[in-house]
């Protein structure tokens, strides 16, 4: 069983090919260049270097959100296009769950944080149990103060990772009352390898879907929808 993993949810573009329990290859860049230009050439290079035929792909696992709206869509459209051509299923892998996999086996809490702009982070809190990251809180956008407060509530040491943790490092140091550590560079970004590994486990449990039915989970409405909702609420109108 070969799983092509894709993550383009943030600044990182990453592709990996997993065969059973072995990553055959992984290609990641953490550089401000549009994923639209980099992702497909990366996937193509990866398979070419590995001498693997495209038709050998059994599943495509993709970071399904949260993340940058455009980044998620580039990953999703790419995954869907491959699935449609090869008639293979797609495995949606929640971005933060996959990031938590980076710190597999940790005895402490694991907290991925992605920069969500608007002074928020996309974050969730995980603990490892039976070799899997288990959600202690539901993933979603939070202000840094809310995120820190939730972590403090657990009263346990936490390992932080992600570009949100980097961006708010000083703020976190000030706000956290629990012990903490920041993940080192090789573990603290999105990795398609983690998406593929977790994706394979999800697929074995029946978590694969048809590419046609898949769309990313954005965890936020569009600005126009938010404004309309607010207007409807303030005018006490029924939504149509």
């Amino acid at each position, binding site marked *: 069983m070969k799983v092509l993993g894709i993550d383009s949810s943030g600044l990182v573009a990453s592709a990996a090919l997993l065969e059973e329990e072995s990553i055959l290859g992984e290609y990641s860049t953490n550089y401000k260049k*549009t994923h*639209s*230009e*980099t*992702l*497909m*050439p990366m*996937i*193509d290079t990866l398979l070419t270097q590995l001498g693997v035929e*495209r038709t050998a*792909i059994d599943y495509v696992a993709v970071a399904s959100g949260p993340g940058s*709206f*455009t980044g998620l*869509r*580039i990953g*999703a*459209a*790419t*995954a*869907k*296009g*491959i699935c*449609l*051509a*090869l008639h293979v299923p797609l495995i949606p892998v929640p971005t933060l769950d996959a990031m938590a996999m980076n710190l597999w086996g940790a005895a402490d809490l694991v907290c991925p944080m992605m920069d969500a702009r608007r002074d928020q982070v996309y974050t969730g809190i995980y603990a490892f149990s039976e070799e899997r990251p288990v959600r202690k809180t539901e993933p979603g956008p939070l202000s840094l103060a809310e995120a820190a407060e939730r972590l403090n509530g657990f009263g346990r040491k936490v390992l932080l990772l992600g570009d949100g943790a980097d961006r708010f490092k000083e703020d976190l140091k000030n706000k956290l009352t629990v012990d903490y550590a920041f993940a080192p560079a090789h573990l603290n970004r999105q990795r398609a390898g983690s998406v593929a590994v977790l994706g394979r486990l999800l697929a074995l449990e029946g978590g694969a879907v048809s*590419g*046609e039915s898949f*769309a*990313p989970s*954005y965890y936020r409405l*569009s*600005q*126009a*929808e938010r404004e*309309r909702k607010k207007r409807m609420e303030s005018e006490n109108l029924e939504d*149509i």
Partner: protein
Amino acid sequence: MDKEIKILAIESSCDETAAAVVKNGREICSNIISSQIELHTLYGGVVPEIASRKHMEKIDQVVSAALKEAGETIQGMDAIAVTYGPGLVGALLVGVAHAKAYAWAAGKPLVGVNHIEGHIAANFLQYPELTPPFLCLVVSGGHTHLVRVLDYGETEILGRSRDDAAGEAFDKVARAIGLGYPGGPKIERAAKDGDAKAIAFPRPGFSDAPFDFSFSGLKSAVLNYLNECKMKGLSYSQADVAASFQAAVTDILTERAELALSETGEKRLALAGGVASNSAIRSSLQAMCEAKGADFYVPAPILCTDNAAMIGAAGYYEYRKGNRAALNLNAVPGLKIGERG
């Protein structure tokens, strides 16, 4: 024609998710359009983020339906063509990323197509006998261009709008007189009961560039008129404003096209783009061409609105020239007519 060339085309530049199968650039085997118009009507215009999300939900379905209706499979296609600009960047990216991955996985060549050149090529689908050179007036929500089509995929721009596109002016005026979105069809309907001569709106032009357009000036004149009525406490006739505005747009387009026919000596004029569905504009251009002894071409409304069949037609000629898109093809929201790469 030695061999039949079949192209699967994908279009997602604005608020229609579309796919089509086209044979030899001229024959439509299928033409599937999933419109989001009702969704955007809630917001009074196209919301880019919502459009992008909707494209993502619909794209596979639309592509599969296009192949199925044509009785084809992806393996039977010679190439995939995709719109990569101009348009809304987020919307374009869905089609571009999907088409690249689809073509790559299926082992098919990919051809990038300019959306405006697609509108022009809609005429090749409607009129299998039409070949360049000819003049073409491209009028849509995002674009107003008067071009001379020298050869397939080769155009000389004679004039363009310096500000708003004609379709944009329709939308803005429709909103101002309370007709709502989308403006084109709503103004056309309202204008049927109005007097086109009721209000003398200006027909702005440029003495140094006789083929250029300005629709922002016309739109401002309409807004000023409405404002004046309001200040004087007068009511205005929605139908008369719609009819008078539409007449001004029609005159501007007809006058430029007539001048272009005279100056270039071309004997054929084609109309293209979403605004080409407007029957007042169609009949005015038709009458002008008849009077001048020129032939007039205009695609059926289904080929004027954004669709993928037109992308398949333009894509075919790009394919024939050997133009292929690389895997790093990006969406280019401001892509110009004739721009490549």
